[in-house]
């Protein structure tokens, strides 16, 4: 009995400690991808939002693990209020029912956004691209095509790739000469998947894997790798902030959207919507491009962007010539299976 009352006292103490922390009331936990991207969101969204509404933002980072969202929702204790997800997760989250369907009427309808970027369970925020880059201070006449990423004879040395099947399989196929518009068609076949993994096999021993978006610029800067895939904004940011001379190879770039998703079971849905509406205003989205070179998904925001920023966006015409647009339905359907295959392959 004594023990029981002791635990009760302790839990009361612990709870009061929890309530005493500055973030318990009137705050939202926003989860994003860390590093320069999250920093840009902090400047363009979180700070002005808190200034305007008084609602504090607690920041959390993740590396896009959909399972963490689902686990949280299934355990009935949703602690993340809004999450920046990729398109495949937005699709999967709807299929598996761990994301809240979005009320687009609050955002001026789906027509307000770039065509094809809207999802039932996610409001698009940016268009980003997975590209590969090298340090122009170290390599003078650098690689030009997606094939060069896999050419260890011509470009010896380590290369860093993201530790996920997403993007790498597409790059492998394009390097094998599969045209951009045939990539997903090919990946739907067993042979296509084999072909992609075979191509990756040829450079496996030269691969350094990255998981967090902040790693690629560091790996390049430290000379740990000669080239690395990356999200284009991170490279832009390293050049701008850290005065690096990284060059982006746009050939075979993989365009994708990031979206705001709301997991099921958030405590204050109205407050979350308030935040997402704020983050989907043309002013806020245009403001973000000052910090990172991602294209806004809101059509009305493009007009507010300075022309010298526009040329660095993945959607600029000269950058997008051979671009491949991510197929979220393909990834929504096949992510789990390819992830399993990929993780097995990586660990072998």
């Amino acid at each position, binding site marked *: 009995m004594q*023990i029981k009352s002791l635990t009760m006292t302790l839990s009361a103490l612990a709870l009061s400690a929890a309530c005493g922390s500055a973030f318990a009331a009137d705050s939202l936990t926003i989860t994003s991808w860390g590093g320069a991207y999250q920093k840009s969101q902090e400047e363009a969204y979180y700070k002005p939002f808190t200034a305007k509404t008084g609602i504090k933002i607690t920041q959390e980072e993740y590396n896009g693990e959909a*399972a963490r969202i689902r*686990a949280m929702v299934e355990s009935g204790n949703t602690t993340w209020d809004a999450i920046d997800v990729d398109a495949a997760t937005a699709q999967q989250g709807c*299929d*598996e029912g761990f994301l809240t369907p979005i009320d687009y009427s609050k955002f001026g309808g789906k027509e307000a956004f770039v065509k094809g970027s809207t999802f039932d369970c996610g409001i698009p925020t940016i268009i980003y691209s997975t590209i590969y880059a090298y340090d122009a201070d170290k390599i003078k006449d650098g690689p030009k095509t997606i094939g060069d990423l896999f050419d260890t004879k011509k470009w010896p040395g380590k290369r860093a790739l993201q530790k996920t099947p997403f993007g790498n399989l597409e790059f492998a196929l394009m390097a094998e000469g599969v045209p951009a518009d045939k990539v997903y068609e090919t990946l739907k076949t067993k042979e296509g998947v084999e072909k992609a993994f075979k191509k990756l096999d040829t450079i496996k021993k030269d691969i350094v894997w990255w998981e967090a978006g902040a790693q690629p610029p560091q790996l390049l800067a430290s*000379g740990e790798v000669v080239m690395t895939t990356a999200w284009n904004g991170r490279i832009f940011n390293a050049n701008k902030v850290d005065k690096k001379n990284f060059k982006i190879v746009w050939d075979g770039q993989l365009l994708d959207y990031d979206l705001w998703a709301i997991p099921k079971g958030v405590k204050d849905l109205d407050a979350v919507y308030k935040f997402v509406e704020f983050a989907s205003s043309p002013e806020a989205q245009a403001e973000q491009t000052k910090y990172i070179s991602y294209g806004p998904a809101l059509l009305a925001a493009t007009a507010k962007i300075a022309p010298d920023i526009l040329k660095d966006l993945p959607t600029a015409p000269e950058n997008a010539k051979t671009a491949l647009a991510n197929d979220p339905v393909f990834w929504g359907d096949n992510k789990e299976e390819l*992830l*399993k295959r990929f*993780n*097995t392959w990586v660990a072998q």
Partner: protein
Amino acid sequence: MAVAALEGDAGPGVDRTSLKTKLRRAERLNRARSFSLVAPLLLFVLAVFALPIGLMLVRSVENTEVRDSLPRTMVALESWDGTATPGEGVFAAFAEDLVQTQKDRTTALVGKRINYEVPGARSRFLKAGRLIDAGGGGPWKDKFLANDAEWGSVDFWAIMKRAGGVMTPYYLLTSLDLRQDATGAVSWNFADQSIFLEIFYRTIWISFMVTLATLILGYPVAHLLAILPPKHANMLMILVLLPFTTSILVRTTAWIVLLQSNGVLNDALLALNITTERVQLIFNRFGTVLAMTHIQLPFTILPIYSVMKSIPASHLRAARSLGAGPLTAFVSVYMPQTLPGVGAGCLLTFILSLGYYITPALVGGPQDQMVSYFVALYTNREMNWGQASALGAILLLITLVLYAVFNRLVGIDKVKLG
């Protein structure tokens, strides 16, 4: 106090039998009192520690997805003989179930469960879900077959039926790189999915190398600590124990700073002209074993030290005076006496190494990840909790067997800290 009373001499006037009863009662009371001191912690450990682990073990054979989501289909399949594609009855029940799973958004989850055993099943289920959403009535069999010819596969339905059972050996079999085909026969898994035996082997191998490294580094140090006068030995003991109480993350950070390509060690090697280009020292097996050895070294040293400390120095002197050379004396007289300590230290380090997660995750490459990493991966990333639990169950079994051996040989109550 009962104990004190019993100490007294039983005088001549005392009834012998009642004293015996009293004695027994007092003993019982005393035992109950002792146990009541132990009980709170025991209950705490059982409730907060053992019970969750037990539930996790259950999860490794649990099989609820299909049973919960497709109840009508499972009933309809009961009378299916398994020789040909099931009839309209099964498909109609299946369609009815899918209407519900579409509403609950669980179609993808059932598909995912079947997908473990039949690759491609998840997208097939999603496609079928869209077919159901499109509306319209039966007959369903032709509609499903037209949607995807695989719905006609006999093997597929056999696996569906099996997946509806209360328990499944699937996760445990997969953890051992085995698979069950549609008839239930067990064979080796496909090469592109076989990985777990290699991972168990890798885990054991890394633990072995770490144990060996700690022994080679630690044995002489333990000897030094044992023969030095206490004043000096205590000073050096602090050097052994300081890393022991320093955060694993601090030590891991230190190794990354030291070993990375542009790190301190590589800078030094280059500056001293020992190497001409930067050497890969981290994010590989070398870095993993090195960092783990650093962390485990005190665990190996301390038990060896405490055994060495109990060996009288006169033994060596006696051997020498009887004519043994220094090496012979050391190897044939001293070393055998240290074996219990060596066994305890090595076994402890080996057991603890098996469960490493953080260090390999931070300083190892993909080929250096151990079982724990995959338990975490399947929990956090792939949401395959059955697989995570099955891998955990096997790792736990190995650990507990070794723990029992340790208890037998050494006794956990002999473990000392500092």
